[in-house]
């Protein structure tokens, strides 16, 4: 797969955008500006970025509790996201959803999801709609290593193969489901090995190498678009932060985290792009300060927006 310079730069920007957003959210959470449960994507940016690079607004994704990265990579507006995290009326969900329920159906984002394993059946459903309507769309289901043990995931994959649905299941194997290490929660070394149970292709990629992710995803997505059915891509990655903000992480070794920080997807792409002179120090600074500015704007927008009015409490339950 030959990625253009523009594509490579786009991915670099997207990964940084996610990182910048997440780091700022961590601070805002610590400052008490953002309530509830917040699950950050720091360290896993290459997955959403590499996958969404091959998707259009016609395509669907289902996300998870750890959804900010997916949303940003699929084109989500960080202003509306930040306002939602603050619980403001101007947020993506008018403040009703919060971090775990942000959606943008115009962009095909079928929502973050607070239920582990909630997304796979929804993704198969979106794929069914694409197939039924014959509109060339595909659906991508992001799900965690923990979610792969849920019955719903099994059911959705089986149904997707039976109906040859245009869906790609993208597993984000960050080795943990809260404190539960994959070594204790499953006996197979690779989640991709489970694809064989449905007779769909299953591949393992380095989830911290955005180019590798992008190539594997492009193949799965084009396969789906051509009507050849679903596939499973397992991206091996790691989360740098706790499961949610506030997690003391007593269940894992610092050294493990350090090892994975060495494999941080952002410096890796950065180095590669500097080698081929797509990036320079100046360009990097420009990108990063641009993102900082966007982030500050988003934060200001969120900060200055009003909370929803109590009269809105029971609106939006039914059409």
């Amino acid at each position: 797969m030959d990625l253009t310079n523009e594509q490579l730069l786009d991915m670099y920007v997207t990964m940084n955008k996610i990182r910048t957003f997440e780091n700022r959210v961590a601070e805002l959470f610590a400052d008490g500006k953002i309530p509830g449960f917040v699950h950050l994507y720091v360290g896993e940016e290459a997955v959403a970025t590499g996958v969404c690079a091959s998707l259009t607004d016609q395509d669907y994704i289902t996300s998870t509790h750890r959804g900010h990265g997916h949303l940003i990579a699929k084109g989500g507006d960080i202003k509306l996201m930040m306002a939602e995290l603050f619980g403001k009326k101007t947020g993506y969900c008018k403040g009703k959803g919060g971090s775990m329920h942000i959606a943008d159906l115009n962009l095909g984002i079928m929502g973050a999801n607070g239920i582990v394993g909630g997304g796979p059946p929804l993704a198969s459903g979106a794929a069914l709609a694409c197939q039924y309507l014959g509109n060339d769309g595909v659906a991508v289901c992001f799900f965690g290593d923990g979610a792969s043990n849920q019955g719903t995931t099994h059911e959705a994959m089986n149904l997707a193969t039976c109906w040859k649905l245009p869906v790609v299941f993208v597993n984000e194997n960050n080795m943990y489901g809260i404190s539960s290490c994959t070594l204790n929660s499953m006996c197979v070394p690779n989640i991709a090995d489970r694809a064989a149970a449905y007779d769909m292709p299953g591949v393992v990629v380095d989830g911290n190498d955005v180019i590798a992710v992008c190539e594997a995803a492009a193949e799965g997505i084009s396969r789906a678009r051509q009507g050849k059915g679903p596939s499973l891509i397992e991206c091996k990655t790691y989360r740098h932060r706790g499961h949610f903000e506030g997690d003391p992480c007593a269940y894992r070794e610092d050294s493990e985290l350090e090892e994975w920080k060495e494999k941080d997807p952002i410096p890796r792409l950065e180095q590669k792009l500097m080698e081929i002179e797509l990036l320079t120090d100046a360009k990097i600074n420009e990108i990063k300060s641009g993102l900082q500015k966007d982030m500050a704007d988003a934060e200001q927008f969120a900060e200055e927006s009003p909370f929803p009015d109590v009269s809105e409490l029971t609106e939006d339950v039914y059409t």
Partner: protein
Amino acid sequence: MPNMNFAQALNDAHKVEMERDANIYVAGEDVGVYGGIFGVTAGLLDQFGDKRVKDTPITESAIVGTAVGAATAGLRPVIELMFVDFIGVALDQLYNQAAKMKYMFGGKAKIPMVLRMTCGAGIGAAAQHSQCLEAMFMHLPGLKVVMPSTPNDAKGLLIEAIRDDNPVVFLEHKMLYALEGEVAEGDFTIPFGQADIKREGQDVTIVATANMVHTALSAAEKLAADGISAEVVDPRTLYPLDEEGIIQSVKKTHRLVIVHEEVKFAGSGAEIAAIVAEKAFDYLDAPILRVAAPFCPVPFSQPLEQAFIPSEEEIIDAVKKVME
């Protein structure tokens, strides 16, 4: 108006709607070749083909969840889940996803889907194939809950359900499938939230649902012979519930007996009683009584199963008690 049974009326509703709207698909276990375990989807596969009538593997979470996803992305799924008892393996996709998505997304989703399920005792199907669980669905904001008692209501309410842009739980009591009645032809709907007075009366209001409407009607006949005039009110939809209709009837009769086949404790009748005890308290001349199933799973053995199902006699007794 042609005569048909409850199952045929439902079948007819499917056909009317599927002919009208190409984005409606039907899915579920054995809905295609088999035509549905109770025959409700018979002939649909032949008429509409397997793109629109989809047999599924045994995988209820995926069936429901796929419908939710498809509905959100533009289709209008009509799902048969067979027995309502099976909702336990698929509830999350119904109540945490379908019911809440619109709200969680700040109003931006539309999830037009119907989940049809058969409920009720009477055929010796035992504890895992005979439950009535309408109270559970009533309590979940985001869902509408329909429970028809006649072929005509079944058809008009199902068409309404299919056209509704919200997830609708459609409960079909299995003892009703063979019930015959006149059914309006072609395209017609019955609006949700309008109770139907199945029998007018002056002395006591009997609110009854599904199969119990008929038991209540025959109890009312017998009561008439004893000089008691009972009004039988069928809510038809439990959410939205026609509070006003029920309250109006109670304001007229001053007495209320509620009948349902669900277990009494924390059943749908509790909500109706609570509403009346709040909003029509001053009109009540007697305690509110509920006639409903006892607090146990549905037994298999026929004499026990018959004793489990609320009877005409129990209704008559309750009415006589509130008339004292």
